[in-house]
């Protein structure tokens, strides 16, 4: 699309704020590193976020998904703690999903519970992870927004300007993580702003400020990436070989996330896509194909006028 080549739509990008027109002396890019290995599932992040951003309650439903009654991120839930109950073989570190307990009456189906004494090497573990908007380096929501309501901020984060958004909803299916949504009460799109206003005041985002165990760490993204790499090494040394980072690579499909994670299992187990790609990476190709199709249509129509009246 431009002289910068692919960088404007995908691939590693050193400074997304400059890309979005901010002068080079803008503040450092900040982000979240969520270390799920120390998350205690207290949901302080969820409440602190709602309290600060004045978000309403959005459902009093017992989900049955372990202790997760929030269920997903949404327009009025900008932090969501996932709970995964599973078995792990302590020698091989292989995990066995438990998932939602069978909704049928036990005995009616063949999925009888595993006898825990059968395999002494497996033990129960309970994964908890606080999910949030990833503040992608290449943010599809922002790219597809027709009004400029979604913008890149000077901190390299992505936010919705509520006074601009007309509720077209395009950002909703564009997000590869299923983060952003429109609010039924206001009609506008809404998601984590990384507490843009608090950042302006020199404060930490509400969720990270509340987090009792420093599972949610906020800071300059480069620092967080270093810290995360160290933490993974540490866990590997302790035998937690399944620890891995998610969303930290600038070479990934979204150019790296502004909010990345240390996970203890595959991303999809936490409801995260295993290999997200910003949809606009393919936009040039899409337009090429569309142009070809449009041309085809034009030519076809023209051809239809060639010839007689038959």
């Amino acid at each position: 699309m431009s002289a910068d080549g692919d960088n404007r739509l995908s691939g590693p990008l050193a400074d997304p704020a400059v890309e979005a027109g901010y002068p080079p002396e803008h503040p450092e890019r900040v982000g979240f590193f969520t270390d799920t290995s120390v998350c205690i599932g207290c949901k302080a992040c969820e409440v602190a976020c709602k309290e600060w951003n004045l978000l309403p309650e959005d459902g009093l439903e017992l989900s049955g998904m372990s202790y997760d009654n929030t269920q997903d991120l949404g327009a009025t839930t900008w932090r969501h703690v996932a709970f995964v109950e599973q078995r792990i073989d302590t020698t091989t570190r292989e995990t066995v999903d438990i998932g939602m307990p069978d909704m049928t009456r036990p005995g009616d189906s063949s999925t009888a519970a595993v006898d825990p004494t059968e395999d002494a090497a497996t033990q129960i573990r309970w994964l908890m992870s606080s999910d949030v908007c990833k503040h992608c380096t290449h943010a599809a929501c922002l790219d597809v927004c027709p009004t400029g309501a979604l913008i890149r901020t000077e901190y390299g984060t992505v936010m919705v300007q509520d006074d601009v958004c007309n509720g077209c909803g395009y950002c909703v299916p564009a997000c590869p993580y299923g983060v952003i949504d429109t609010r039924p009460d206001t009609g506008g799109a809404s998601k984590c702003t990384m507490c843009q206003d608090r950042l302006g005041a020199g404060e930490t985002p509400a969720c990270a400020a509340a987090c009792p165990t420093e599972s949610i760490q906020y800071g300059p993204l480069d620092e967080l990436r270093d810290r995360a790499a160290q933490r993974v090494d540490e866990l590997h040394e302790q035998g937690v070989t399944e620890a891995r980072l998610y969303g930290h690579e600038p070479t990934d499909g979204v150019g790296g996330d502004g909010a990345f994670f240390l996970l203890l299992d595959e991303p999809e187990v936490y409801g995260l896509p295993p290999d997200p790609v910003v949809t606009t990476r393919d936009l040039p190709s899409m337009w090429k194909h569309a142009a070809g199709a449009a041309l085809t249509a034009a030519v076809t129509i023209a051809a239809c006028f060639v010839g007689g009246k038959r």
Partner: protein
Amino acid sequence: MREWLRWPVLRQLSGSDFLGRGRAARSPSADEPARIENADSVVRSVCPYCAVGCGQRVFVRDGEVTQIEGDPDSPVSRGRLCPKGSASRQLVTSPSRQTKVRYRRPHGTEWEDLDLDTAVDMIADRVLATRDETWEQTDEQGSLLRRAMGIASLGGATLDNEENYLMKKLYTALGAIQVENQARI
């Protein structure tokens, strides 16, 4: 004309944000100050839920609590709060909180309104009547009892020490001994 010049498309064309993904598309709302910045006062407090005693900062504007968050200075909590502590603003500003005295007369089927002053006065009368009615000066053997067994109280663990102190002092002087709180439960 000025409105027209603020049209982001013009900013896109004239500025560094040709694609309109940042600076050019920015609305003044993106720079609105945080409500903790324009608070009239920031009050140091302590979380009212469990006994860890996390520090809280209470932000006030126009006589209303606008935000409650952890106090980073506290060596107990280092600025952190659990979900309950984080919900403190909702606790104190919740519209479900009662603001008026409610009264139910004996055998009544509905709540009634009652003036606070009248309520306290009526309670004082009840206390004195029950005290006299159930007073025990001595037991059968003549040992001093000096108490009123008709009055009991439950509560204190969520209150301030000063409040517990006045409660215990007043009850003891009245001879009410069945004074208990959550520490027993």
